């Protein structure tokens, strides 16, 4: 069993992990940024001492990740509070801040927030005043590209804490075909005690599915699909399924959400009604599992195909050609 496949099985059914290739499981979990999630799934089980020590350390590390994540969100809250606008946390930070199941052991890299598009200039200058700095040269190709075509500002990084913030105004690039309703995302968001907000449960899943299947090259996809599995299990009810369907349609993202349900069910056994796997689903599945028990990426051709697809989703062919040409000339 390959590294990624054994990782999926261990996450899905921790009891099934007997005398397995522990080294391969640990390496695959680290490579997919799922070591923390796996460590919590394995908590309390009888394991070889060295493996138990690895998981215990990962659980302790998760506590540090949570502290750091919530602190970063708080720093952002303080910087933006004077603007009086809704600030919606997204992805990992939102799971931690809202105390969701999906946050157990969840790694967090950047801070992702969503704000109303018309507030972007004010948000950016407030962040710059509070110690965040530009990563991309102002007025350069990347900078202009982000501002014109992307769903987020060019990334900013904090000069002391060395952490990045992505300021979104919607959840897909403007060049993508689906047009999510950003105003509805903010309108439906839920306030936390400290005044920051998180997306409504259904929108969280729509966003995770959009991020995974309608944007990018599926790198880190097993973790994103694990988020979806955890969210679906936590929120599941008859009403919720109907809401999820409605929100997916509203944001023009019914197809990625459908695929997310089918693949979550397929890989993680998520208890949701989902149709049969399509031929395309099987390609996505193969791409998600393309990692061996040394943590190495496998399936070069498949990976390349998804890399190309990621770019094509973002821009029409002519624009892509111009973009790649400019990027190549910049080297």
């Amino acid at each position, binding site marked *: 069993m390959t590294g990624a496949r054994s990782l999926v099985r261990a996450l899905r059914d921790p009891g099934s992990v007997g005398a397995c290739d*522990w*080294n391969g499981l*640990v*390496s695959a979990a*680290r*490579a997919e940024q799922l070591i923390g999630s796996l460590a919590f799934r394995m908590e309390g089980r009888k394991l*070889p001492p*060295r*493996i138990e*020590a*690895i998981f*215990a*350390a*990962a659980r*302790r*590390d998760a*506590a*540090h990740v949570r*502290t750091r994540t919530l602190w970063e969100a708080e720093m952002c809250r303080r910087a933006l509070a004077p603007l009086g606008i809704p600030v919606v946390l997204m992805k990992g930070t939102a799971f931690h801040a809202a105390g969701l199941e999906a946050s157990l052991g969840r790694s967090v890299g950047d801070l992702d927030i969503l704000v109303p598009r018309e507030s972007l200039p004010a948000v950016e200058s407030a962040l710059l005043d509070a110690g965040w700095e530009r990563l991309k040269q102002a007025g350069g190709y990347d900078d202009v590209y982000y501002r014109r075509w992307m769903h987020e500002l060019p990334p900013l990084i904090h000069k002391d804490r060395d952490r990045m913030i992505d300021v979104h105004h919607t959840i897909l690039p403007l060049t993508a075909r689906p047009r999510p309703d950003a105003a509805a995302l903010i309108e439906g968001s839920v306030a936390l005690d400290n005044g920051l907000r998180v997306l409504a449960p259904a929108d969280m899943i729509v966003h995770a599915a959009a991020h995974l299947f309608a944007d990018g090259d599926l790198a880190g996809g097993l973790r994103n699909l694990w988020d979806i599995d955890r969210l679906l299990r936590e929120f599941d009810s008859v009403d919720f399924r109907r809401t999820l369907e409605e929100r997916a349609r509203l944001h023009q993202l019914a197809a990625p959400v459908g695929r997310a349900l089918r693949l979550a069910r397929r890989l993680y056994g998520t208890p949701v009604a989902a149709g049969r796997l399509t031929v395309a689903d099987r390609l996505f599945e193969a791409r998600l599992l393309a990692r061996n028990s*040394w*943590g*190495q990426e496998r399936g070069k051709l498949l990976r390349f195909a998804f890399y190309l697809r990621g770019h094509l989703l973002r821009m029409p062919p002519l624009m892509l050609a111009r973009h790649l040409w400019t990027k190549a000339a910049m080297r």
Partner: protein
Amino acid sequence: MRHRLALQIGPVAFRIGSAWRSPLDALARLYAGYPAPADGLCDFTVRLEPERPWRRFLRPSVAIRGDYVLPDAAPLALAHGLLAAEMGMNLQMALGQRTWLLLHAATVEKDGRAIVMTGESGAGKSTLAALLGERGWRLMGDEFALLDLASGALLPFPRAISLKNGAIGVMEAEAAADRFGPRLAGTPKGDIRHLRPNAEAIARMGEGARPALILFPRFGSAAAVRGVGQAEAFMRLTQASTNYVALGRRGFDALANLVRGVPALAIDYPDTETAVGLIADFRRELAA
């Protein structure tokens, strides 16, 4: 991976895979006599692989990868594959170690009392530790000291000692030839030759020790000794640690207990023999 090797060093086990045979052959020779990890279970995986597929044969270049990776690490020539394996293990410890407080420091022990020596690269701690290891001290490690968060004990991590440039000749005069790895000329860090710690250091790699003295050695000036206050020692040790922040409160408590319980000294020394003499004096004072 095509070629593989597992190594137990102190409490930590590594699995090393390589696309080429030669780095692992050199590694196996250097670590002759080290135990294999129990049941083959390892804490960290290191991979030595071609930067691009064709670079396995064509001007082979070894990329250092593994569970934890530095994105912009430069690849090494295949002739320096042994160094790549060593750097790969260091990287896993520096980026992934969360069980013990990791200090970038050399440690030697005598009569159950350990001296922790830390300083910037070039301060001479490796050479000093290597020399003391041949002069009646037990070498616990020349690169990383592991501080147990609960007990405050130091655990051995007796990796092969990485000797650079002038230190190579110093140690060639001290230790048997069969304990040395190949001389690696012209690496990014200059000439490097690895030295396997002696048999006692390997046999007792499971045995910790109480810290007795923190030393900040600095090579190059006339001999001088200066006491270092607890606050300064604490700050310098946080800078010498790769995981102090990630360990949170537990890391703070362990380090605070260390500097409260153990004296700290900064020493200047013009040559290694002088430093060995100073350390022998400290030991007598500590024992008195």
